[in-house]
């Protein structure tokens, strides 16, 4: 603006760099710790420069796991997390887009009650109904299964609302045109609406993938078998052992590996991420 002199800009640069340092420091420490010798860390003499154990620590973390009680390779946990995150994201998008389509493009008895039944789920996160949900999943014999991990997290309305809003902005002329071409409701959905929704679906996928990957309380309750653990649960189990025996380099390598996929998604697909975040919060 008028008096935007150099000095103020320097201050802004400095404040932003301090902010970035605060934000990055814990992660930097974790990465450094994952390349060092455990004895050094346990003695409280960890250096703030990278050590020489990078390959050895990451190899053990991914393919072998800790040498303590939970001998589960983190690579396997990452696979579980990946499957769960993709199931949550794809599942939610799939069921939401078709129900939003029905609600916007059809007139049928109980349309509004059904809409409200779905809409209300927006309000309650899974945390507040955790034990009864656990019991139902147990009764359905879905403990320690991918379906049990993903399905209860799919039960929410955010995506439905988003698609409903988007469909309302699609001009009616498109429907008229495809009707003249002789297209039925399914054809119109598949050939016209779905291609138009691509960006929305991608933005939603980014957000839901991160949400699914980062789930904690739910997988903590319903996975009992070590080979079904997600990476977030794995970290906690690694720290359960007596502090002195915690293999910190492996714990920190696991933390770094747990951050990598979602952080990569945010940075690589920044535009979609921002869009998805802003849209789902409306």
């Amino acid at each position, binding site marked *: 603006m008028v008096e935007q002199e150099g000095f103020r800009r320097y201050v802004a640069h400095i404040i932003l760099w301090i902010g970035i340092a605060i*934000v990055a420091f814990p992660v930097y*420490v974790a990465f450094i710790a994952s390349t060092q010798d455990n004895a050094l860390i346990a003695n409280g003499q*960890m250096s703030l420069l990278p050590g020489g154990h990078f390959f050895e620590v990451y190899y053990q973390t991914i393919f072998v796991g800790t040498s303590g009680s939970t001998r589960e390779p983190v690579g396997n946990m990452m696979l579980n997390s990946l499957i769960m995150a993709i199931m949550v994201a794809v599942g939610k998008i799939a069921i939401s887009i078709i129900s939003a389509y*029905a609600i916007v493009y059809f007139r049928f008895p109980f349309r509004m009650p059904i809409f409200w039944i779905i809409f209300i789920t927006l309000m*309650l996160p899974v945390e507040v109904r955790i034990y009864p949900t656990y019991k*139902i999943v147990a009764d359905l014999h879905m403990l320690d299964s991918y379906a049990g991990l993903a399905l209860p997290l799919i039960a929410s309305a955010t995506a439905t609302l988003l698609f409903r809003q988007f469909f309302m902005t699609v001009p009616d002329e498109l429907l008229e045109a495809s009707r003249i071409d002789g297209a039925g409701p399914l054809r119109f959905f598949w050939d016209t609406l779905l291609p138009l929704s691509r960006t929305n679906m991608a933005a939603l996928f980014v957000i839901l993938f*991160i949400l699914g990957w980062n789930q*904690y309380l739910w997988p903590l309750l319903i996975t009992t078998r070590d080979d079904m653990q997600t990476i977030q649960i794995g970290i906690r189990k690694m720290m359960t052992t007596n502090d002195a025996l915690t293999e910190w380099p492996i714990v920190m390598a696991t933390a770094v590996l747990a951050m990598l996929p*979602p952080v990569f998604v945010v940075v690589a697909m920044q535009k979609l991420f921002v869009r998805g975040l802003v849209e789902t919060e409306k």
Partner: protein
Amino acid sequence: MQKQAIFKSKLLPYALVAPQLAIVLIFFYWPALQAVIQSFLLQDAFGLSVSFVWFDNYVELFSEPAYFETVVRTFIFSFAIAASSLSVALLLAVMADKPLRGGAVYRTLLIWPYAVAPPVVGVLWVFMLHPSLGVLSRYLRAAGIEWNPLLDGDQAATLVILAAAWKQISYNFLFFLAGLAAIPKSVLEAAAIDGARPMRRFWTVTFPLLSPTIFFLLVVNIVYAFFDTFGIIDTMTRGGPGKSTETLVYKVYNDGLIGGNLGSSAAQSVILMIMVIVLTGIQFRFVERKVTY
């Protein structure tokens, strides 16, 4: 609400809503109903008999000083997390909103912690500030502070608040940036021509115009502090030492799973549900109307 141009079909719309309806009914309504029913039941210590006790679980909960303390603690945590995270994020957003060289890079470097999972946040911070091996603890001890969050409840609470606020900075930053971008530059220029210095311009023009964003974020941050801090607390302190970092959600988990007191745990869930519904209601009301001037 609905299109003018629509399809006519008897069965297809039901088939299309059926999957979502089924999942919502089985995994949302049924458990929520169960929680409400369970909150009126009392199970004996061996789980052999169940009796209907009306509001006994609630009465017992409210007569328990520990529950009241947890409620107060959760609110203190929420406001501390919201206030610290919002103020840092606002400062950074105001700086990043300026036409600076490398602005996009700053943005990218500030938004990625959104993607870090709460349990990982807990691990990172507990490691950094671990009493015996944390890299920052050395400096705290050198500064003469007796730092031991594993034993000192206040220090543990501070640690949880710091970690939770740290994670939320990026989210708040993004929404503040969007809010700042929506403020018309002409208003700020007008204030500048009237001779308002940058600080004054911020407090008299920018800040009031941001109030809808601030209010929205305040609610989101409180909900975040209620629910998403579970992973942070669980990997950092498990609610301890004592009960000094036990929030409402953590207590539901603790009493139900470890204490085996399902009736009380269910009653707490129901109270939490009511709190969230109220918070969401407030948010909808004000977001609809906008807190504008």
